[in-house]
Each structure stands twice: as C-alpha cells, then as structure tokens.
C-alpha cells in the first residue's frame, strides 16, 4: 500500500491537535471547537508561511475546511500531497 503524505492534513492535525485518524471530511470549522476566529487568523499565517503563498481577501473568506483550503492551494499551483 502506498501511503500518501499530505502536508496540509499534517499541518491541520498538528495545529488543532486532532487525533491522527481524524477523517478529512471532519476537518471542518463547525466541527472543531478550537477553530474560532483567533485560530483562523493564526491558521492563515501558518498556511501562508508553510506553503509560501499569499491569500487575497476573497480567498480568506473560503478557507473553512480541509477541502476548501486544499482547493485554494491547488488554484495557486501548490500540491499538498506527494
């Protein structure tokens, strides 16, 4: 079996201190209590610094789940898994 490393998933798991087996579909703002507006601010800094990208205002309003963040990164040409 090939195990995919997923840098975005790792980042989110570490950032919110999630259980490692958390399903990707569960990494959503409304299901994570710690994901408040303060965490959101820090999370954006984290993603920008780790992946070396900058988000525009419109994009920042659409970063409320693993899949949304992944899509936003993909649009910028960033591959999150290898």
């Amino acid at each position, binding site marked *: 079996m090939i195990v995919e490393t997923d840098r975005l998933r790792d980042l989110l798991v570490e950032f919110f201190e999630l259980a490692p087996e958390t399903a990707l579909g569960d990494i959503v703002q409304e299901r994570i209590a710690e994901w408040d507006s*303060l965490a*959101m601010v820090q999370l954006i800094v984290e993603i*920008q*610094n780790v992946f070396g*990208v900058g*988000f525009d205002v419109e994009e920042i309003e659409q970063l409320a789940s693993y899949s949304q963040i992944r899509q936003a990164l993909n649009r910028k040409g960033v591959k999150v898994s290898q």
Partner: protein
Amino acid sequence: MSYLEQEQQKALRPLGTHAGREGRGHLDAVISRLPESARPAVMEAFGKAPTWAKVRRANAALEGADANLQGPEVVVHLLASFNLEPIEAALRLGLACIPCRPQMQVAPLNTIEQHLLDQCSGVYREHNLATVVLWRIEELLPEALLPYSSGGADAAKERMESLWQRIETACCAYREMGKSPLVVATFPAPQQMSGLMLNSQLVGGALNAVAELNCRLRELAASVTGLHIMDWNWWATREGAAAFDPMMEQMARQPLSLQGALSLGLFVARHVRPFLAPRRKVLVLDADNTLWGGILGEDGLWNVKLGHEFPGRIFLRIQREARELKNQGVLLALVSKSDEAEVRQAFRELPDMVLRWEDFASRRVNFNHKYESLRAMAEELGLGIDSFAVLDDSDHEREQIRMFHPEVLVINQRSDPLHMLQALQSTDAFDAYSLTGEDRARHGEYQLREARSGRGHGANLEEFLHALRLEATVERVEEGNEQRVLQMLSKTNQFNLTTRRHRLEEVKALMEKPGSIGLTLRLADKFGDQGIVGVLLTVPDEGHRLRIDSYLVSCRALGRGVEECLWAELVKQALKDGVQGIVGEYIPTAKNALAEKFYNKLGFVQLEQTPSVTRYLMEPLKPVDPPSWLARKDEQ
C-alpha cells in the same frame, strides 16, 4: 505577483536578514542563555520559516526544561492600542528568552487608560515586575492619517494636545499610585499611509505627530522616575515592512507579521530584562584583530590596520564604542597573548589609537591562558567573573572562555571584524535605563546564576582540548607546501627557535641533503581547517645526529600541542633512519622569549650558551607519545 503576495514574500525573509547579519548575532547570544534542552526548538521558532506550531513547540520546550534553569517567575503586563491576543504566544516566547518563566498578562484591545487609571487593575498588584505599553497613532490619532478630511491645522493641534494630556495623565497616575516601573513604547511611523508627500510637509500630519509625541514622551520619562522609554519606532524602522502584515491588521486588528511578533517579543524582553539582571560591569577586550587588524608581534607596529581607511576604520570604530562604554561606567580590561612592551608601544605610538593603556582598569598581556587571566582580573577588580563580557576574535579563545567560565558573556560569535563591531553595538550586556539603574537588579538572576555555576566547573585544559576535536596532519616538506613553509619562515616571530628567514632555494638545498627531515603540521578543529601552522626543518649533523635548523609554530595555534606533536613525529622518523641524537639551538630575538625554555621542557641537555645562541642535545633518542588530544588525521 499580487501586492499581497509581494508583502508575503517580504514576510518570508528570515528574521534579522534585513537588519544585517548582526541581528542574528544578538539572537545567538539570547539563545545561549537558555536551558540547553530548549535551544533547538527555540532556534527553530526564530529561524527562517517560523510557524505558530514551532512557536508553540518552543514554548513547550522552555516550560519543560529544568525549573532551575528557566529563570525566575515573572509577571509582566502588556497593554496596547491594538489586539495583542493573536500574537500572545510569540510575545511569551520572547519574554521566556530573558530567561524567565513569564506570567504574561495581555489586556484587551485599547484598554490602556482603563488599566493605568484603575487601581484595582492587575498592573497595580504587588508582584508585577513591569507594565509595558504599546501604542500607535493608527488607533489613537487616526485623523492624522487623513489630514485633509479632518479639519485644518488648528483642529489637528487640538487633537494632538488632547491626546498628549491623556497620555501624560495616565502615565503619571500610574507612577504615583503604582510601584512597578512603566515602560512605554515610542509611536512608530505609520506603515500604511496615503499622500506621503503632502503628509511629509504638514505640521499637523501623521509624521509630525509621531515625532512630536515621541519627543514629549522622552521628556516626560526624563522627569518621572520609574517611567522608561522603549523605542518601538526605532525597532519598526530597523525591522521594516517584513515585521508588519496588512492582512492581519484588517483581519485581527493586530498589525504584525509572525516574524514581527517574534522580534517584538525579544525587544520587549530586552526592555524588561534590566529589572531582573544586573548589567555587566567589565568589557574584556583582546588586542590583536580586535582593537586593530593584524598581529602586532608578526606584522609589526606599522603594519597593523587601524585608521580611517577600510578595514582599519572598523577597528577604529570598535575602539570608539569601547571608549563610549567606558564613559557609560563600564570597566575596560585588556587580555592579550602578546608581548607587553610591544602592546604598550602600540598604545603609545599608533597615531589613530583611540583607547589609551590607562583606559583599562586591568590588563593581562602575557602568554598565560586567558581563562586564568580572567580569573586573576576578577580577583584584582573585586568583581564576580559573571560581571564580565568578552570581545575576542579567536574562536579558540572564546570557546575556552565559554568552557571554563560559562558565566562570562561572550559578545561575538565570529571573528569577522564587522560582525564584532556590530555584536558590540547590539549586545544587551550593558543595557541600563539610567547609569544608576544597576541597583535595581533583583534576586532572581542570582538564583539562576547559582543553578548554572555547577556546570563548567571542573573543566580542565586537557578536556577542553579534547572538546575542540583537534586533528593534525603531518607531512614532509615538498613542492606543494613549500610556499606556505616560506611564508611561515618569514612571518613567525614568537614561537620560533632560530628565526632563520630562508629563501626558497635555501629550503630546497636543506631538504635535498640526504637524511634531512622536514615536517609540516596542518591543524583542523571543530571550527574548521587552520592550514599549516607548524614547521620543523632538520639537517644531518656529524655523529649520526640531526640538527634542528628551524622550529616554528604560528602564534594562533599555540597551546594546542602542535610543537609536541611535531617533536614526537620527528623522533619517530629519526629513529627509523638510525639517528642517534638531535641537536637544537635557541637563537634569542626581541620577540621569541616565549620559546626560550622549550628544549629544556622536552628534556634536552644544554651544551653551551653564548649571548647569540644556546645549544642543546638530546641523546639517545627515545620514542615520545604525541599529545592525546591531537588526533593524527594522516594515520587514521
């Protein structure tokens, strides 16, 4: 690339790159004070690509370290006109680097006056070490950023005066009612501002408001005891745009990038530290390649670099900074491994010398180990060695001092003169809010020092030399290294038994004699390869003997066992060749007193002595063990 991406690119630069290499130097000094177990995590957090996760890990590593090494528990209140909450972890990390266990209290956005005027606020509690205030005109005087929409010059002046009244009232009230000191930031010039040119002309504009407020703050601090200035405006100028993040400002009412927040944490820590740690009392200076460029004993008095041309002007500036510190009440001390008469002459005769021999409260110019000299100086001055800070270009000397006296602060990390100058300028070793402020030093630092003092004691010279991971490569003199051999023959003065300045043809002729042995020694240590630092040339003499023609070791490699290692190798090869004995000569010069007793030390017998030469003999030869700390790279 969008504007925001450009901003982001700037923000991704490592901390301190825009401020030059010295920014990093200060950080190294800060980290060196932390418990060893926490250093890697802290270095990572302050490194090239900081993230909140790294900041969190660094905080955890510090909290997990030995409690005795974490430093005293310290309460600091932070008040700001903007939202500190999102960057709290970065500020906490900075404070922990004092080092201390910070109990940081962050007040809600823009409640500065409420706290300073309310005696029930935490800032008035007994154990508050200090209250730090950060403010910006963006929040307190926003109209100044839009002068053409905010009435004329009179309205601007009125607003400015009313803001100043509030500031003055709050600061004075706090100092009258409270016990702990108040550290107020200067206002930084606004980062984002339109109409730059018009604003630059206006008396009632933002830039002038910043200058005026800062000027008044300084005047106020001069007249109110316990009120101190933290020049945040200076910090913002130096850190530049990378320290700020316009998106954060909009999203979180907090203007700083993560890099900026980390740097600000260290900056705040630096301004709180004087309430905990006494300033260092003694600046110990090396001479060669520290106060002037070059080596007095080798290059000669008139060839050392000191003056108004590059690079001599860097050394001139180092001397000026040292003199300034002296005038700020810091004692200067001179520790140099050179000839005292020569150093005195340099101070007396070099025209651009800023410092005088008399400027030094204590001097040790001799060939003793510097750690011994430091100990002797501490006794002489009646001061703890923990009040010493050292500037020395030699990696070896700095490492030795660090190992024998971990409580001594080593100011510079590298030997580059510009780095040394900048390290001296940026060190926090002599920080004080006023020149009588030393008394404020509290108990905490002493306890911390006691906890530390156990380490490093018991270190002996041999352990130190082992720790340097010295490696020697001994080779025959041959075409590939002849040039270096010649250079050493012409330059080396101090450890040079005969000071014979051979030319190339003479060296070749010596080495062509059947039975002659010529050796070079190349030295490397954990700091890098030092190149060839030792030369030993011998020629056959009557009665199956060898005569040592030249025996020299570069002064920067003395005390590492280079001369003994060469000797051991010579004996080994000579025995193989069936040599019976070895003749040595010592020819005294004005500079080589250091080597006078060397043959006695090796066990030679003195044959004869005249004023111009002393002759020695070793016969029969016995194998000698080379120094144990000097690994032979060529034999591995």
